[in-house]
């Protein structure tokens, strides 16, 4: 800094008057500003409280704001959906609605809501993540049946993303357990998407081994022996495969796979296996917050409207499978609708049972990794 020593008596040397005044005003400014900052913060909070209070009234304010805490790959979907919902809500209630979006890993997002991130609605990747919020007392029990199709307005499944031309000739699950095939999938211990991958593979093995658990375990073991990078999240695994060019096949969400193809149409292609799993992302109103803010009505409608024809088409456009079968059939060009899909409740006895059997400590996944 080169200012270490300033010599003794020179401090009394007359300072340029202008400089002196400038310094003084700087000091005053510096002293006054935090007060101003505090004041403005307080007033923002106050204003927020006012709108909250007002929206609880019978007479509706002109505008309302809700927060949708969602997971990573839904950004484009909700960007488009929010627009049509704003129009819909304006027609329905005369109110302008603003929707604040938050995206991140599903588990991480659930965690942040649990810690106080005030979401009016959550639209997460896994039923379990919403169940965590139920356990935390934020969402009332019975939310699964609050909306149609177990509160899953759109679904997805697990497919393979391979390099263009499919150099390893991957067609089905038994191709990816062959020696020399490098598989990219995230860690089922930390990633929701990875659990769907695991269960889809298990479903295939069960069907081909006549439900012999030992054989299926062996199959899964071979599969995970081929995994070269075990990322902590689905988006990380996609980046590893697509951007960093690791591995021969990525086990991916169907919508993520389509998104990767859209980004790099000449580099990748999608392979749909003979059997996969119906992934049902869950939506729910966060009762505690919506009640506090008086946004229950608009939050509920926000999720309900996801089932409308218009929104269902939007989901299809964004590579999610619409839960409405009529609309789904309109997307037969995009999706392989003949794909046999198992689902978590009928084939695995629900998430709780599946977690206990496969992913809990020293359950099947741990056993595979220890062997």
């Amino acid at each position: 800094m080169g200012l270490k020593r300033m010599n003794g008596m020179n401090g009394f040397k007359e300072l340029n008057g202008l400089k002196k005044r400038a310094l003084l005003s700087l000091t005053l400014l510096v002293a006054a500003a935090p007060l101003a900052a505090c004041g403005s913060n307080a007033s923002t909070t106050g204003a927020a409280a006012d709108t909250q209070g007002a929206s609880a009234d019978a007479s509706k304010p002109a505008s309302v704001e809700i927060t949708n805490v969602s997971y990573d790959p839904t950004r484009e979907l909700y960007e488009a959906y929010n627009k049509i919902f704003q129009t819909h809500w304006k027609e329905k209630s005369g109110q302008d609605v603003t929707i604040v979006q938050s995206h991140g890993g599903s588990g991480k997002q659930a965690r942040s809501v649990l810690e106080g991130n005030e979401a009016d609605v959550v639209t997460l990747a896994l039923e379990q993540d919403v169940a965590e919020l139920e356990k935390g007392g934020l969402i009332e029990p019975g939310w699964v049946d609050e909306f149609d199709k177990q509160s899953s307005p759109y679904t997805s499944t697990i497919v393979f993303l391979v390099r263009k031309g499919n150099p390893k000739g991957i067609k089905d699950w038994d191709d990816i357990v062959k020696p020399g095939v490098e598989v990219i999938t995230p860690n089922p211990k930390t990633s929701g998407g990875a659990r769907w991958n695991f269960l889809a593979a298990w479903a295939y093995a069960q069907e081909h081994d006549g439900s012999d658990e030992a054989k299926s375990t062996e199959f899964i073991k071979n599969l995970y022996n081929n995994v070269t990078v075990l990322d902590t999240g689905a988006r990380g695994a996609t980046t590893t495969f697509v951007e960093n060019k690791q591995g021969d096949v990525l086990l991916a969400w169907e919508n993520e796979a389509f998104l990767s193809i859209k980004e790099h149409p000449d580099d990748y292609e999608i392979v749909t296996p003979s059997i996969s799993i119906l992934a049902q992302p869950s939506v729910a109103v966060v009762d505690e917050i919506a009640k506090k803010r008086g946004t229950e009505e608009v939050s509920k409608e926000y999720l309900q409207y996801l089932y409308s024809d218009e929104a269902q088409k939007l989901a299809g456009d964004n590579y999610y499978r619409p839960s409405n079968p009529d609309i789904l059939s309109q997307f037969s060009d995009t999706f392989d609708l003949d794909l046999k899909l198992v689902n978590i409740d009928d084939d695995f006895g629900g998430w709780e049972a599946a977690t206990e059997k496969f992913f809990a400590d020293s359950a099947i996944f741990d056993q595979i990794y220890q062997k």
Partner: protein
Amino acid sequence: MSDPNPIPPNPASIPQPAAAARNTARAQGRTARLVLIALGVLFILVMLVLPLITVCVYALKQGWDVFSNAITDPYAIKALQLTLLATAAAVICNTVFGLFASWTISKFHFRGKQFLTTLIDIPFAISPVIAGLVFILVFGRIGWAYDFLQAHDLKVVFAVPGVILATIFVTFPFVARELIPLMQAQGSDEEEAAALMGAGWWTIYRKITLPHIKWGLLYGIILCTARALGEFGAVSVVSGHLRGKTNTLPLHIEILFSEFQLTAAFAVSSILVAAAIIILILRNIVEFKGRKEEHEHVR
């Protein structure tokens, strides 16, 4: 950081072997010097300049339109505004605190002074992520202050105050750390003299202390600004990533990046790079002025 005045080689101090040997030695010295300089330049190029160029190249890769769309995106602008707000708050708070703390620590003697100095350094030592988690554990839904905040309709974490708080925390020591050694080196002779002549504390502070430290103070403020603009870890934990509300510029960049919008991510990054370059230029001006003034004083 003080003047690196190299000691000029004194010919008399060199022993007197043959002139040729001396020349060889000199040549060797020159080679060594060149190699070292080359290494230094290479290192700077690879570690500092190359990333900057990469950012700019990527930012403009898909043309000017994509670039300007990315930086005029409403969410990008909101993020920039929040970053500026948090930076301003951090700079103001930490300047006030830094002035008080450095004055107290360098001009007065009291018990526990060393402890206080150590405390100021905590944000340097702690990982920003932990700092963020601490705020969550205090002000979050599971934190002990939550009921109080709820009762008064206040929101700290996952809201703007949390972002500001986290930024202030990580930039806490910058101004104080800059001023303390400076003021300690100056000692308190002049202030004591002024006090003996009957000057009040405010006069002393304004006419003696502040003029002495102003360049160091500005330097600290600049460093603090630079750090606050780029803060990621602690803010990431407390922000909740609410688009247009609690996303700062670095968080916005990360989101764009993980959404495969590489060009947009780099375009927004270039705002921060530009800010960094401006800050560096300011820093150099301040340093230069400070040094010049010092020379004047010495004369």
